[in-house]
């Protein structure tokens, strides 16, 4: 078990597949369309840049570990938008309450998420979710700062961790 875990927790580049290249070229072309605000007269240069960016990004960030399931992204973003709205309201509530109801502290929780992009997703998401701010990732643990140690931080982190896991293909037959 622990060896299996260790294997999961190290970043390991995987062989580049044709679909990796295709996705990146398409994404770069999409970015060009967005950045040029839909102008049609610059596509010659745009295609060149898209290919160049794909080459550079494959060199700098080779594909690692489990792949992001793009089709599951909208669901994640919807959940995230709702929760981060709640996070803003939560901060506002605490700020405007006369007694300043705060009980800040740190919590360290176990985390069995593959190293690399999944963890970055989680850490960055947590900083924008209600009551949590990711402080540090130590091996298989995550240290979180919270506005109120009395609230159920473990459940919040567990929920976020589950959703990031789903985003990276957990819960599907391989």
């Amino acid at each position, binding site marked *: 078990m622990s060896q299996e875990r260790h294997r999961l927790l190290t970043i390991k580049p995987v062989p580049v597949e044709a679909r990796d290249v295709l996705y990146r070229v398409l994404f770069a072309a999409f970015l060009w369309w967005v950045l040029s605000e839909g102008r049609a007269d610059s596509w010659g240069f745009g295609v060149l840049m898209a290919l160049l960016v794909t080459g550079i990004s494959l060199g700098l960030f080779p594909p690692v570990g489990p792949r992001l399931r793009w089709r599951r992204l909208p669901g994640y973003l919807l959940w995230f938008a709702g929760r981060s709205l709640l996070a*803003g309201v939560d901060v506002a509530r605490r700020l405007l309450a006369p007694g300043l109801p705060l009980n800040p502290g740190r919590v360290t929780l176990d985390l069995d998420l593959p190293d690399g992009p999944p963890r970055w997703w989680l850490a960055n998401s947590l900083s924008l979710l*209600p009551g949590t701010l990711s402080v540090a990732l130590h091996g298989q643990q995550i240290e979180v700062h919270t506005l109120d140690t009395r609230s159920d931080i473990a459940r919040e982190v567990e929920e976020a961790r589950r959703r990031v896991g789903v985003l990276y293909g957990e819960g599907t037959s391989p």
Partner: protein
Amino acid sequence: MTEVLQVALLFLGCLFFGLGTLGLFRFPDTLTRIHALTKADNLGLGLIVLALLPGVTGWAVAVKILLVWVVALVASATSAHLVARALSAGEEAGSD
């Protein structure tokens, strides 16, 4: 109708920016200030982006301002995490 919604979103966005700045002064220590700033300001920016969406001139522009928001989200979440980590590393080392 769209106009009313737009003004309402703009107002709410400004409100959250104000709250973020208020948090910068009212919360007791640096880590709690990070909470207030990242959450309130990013929500404020999001609401302002939503308010601007009806007035754009094309799909690409709409995606572009959404992209600016996403980049700002990632940027501030990353810097919040980095500042928090530096603070706790500094405490452990006994400096600062």
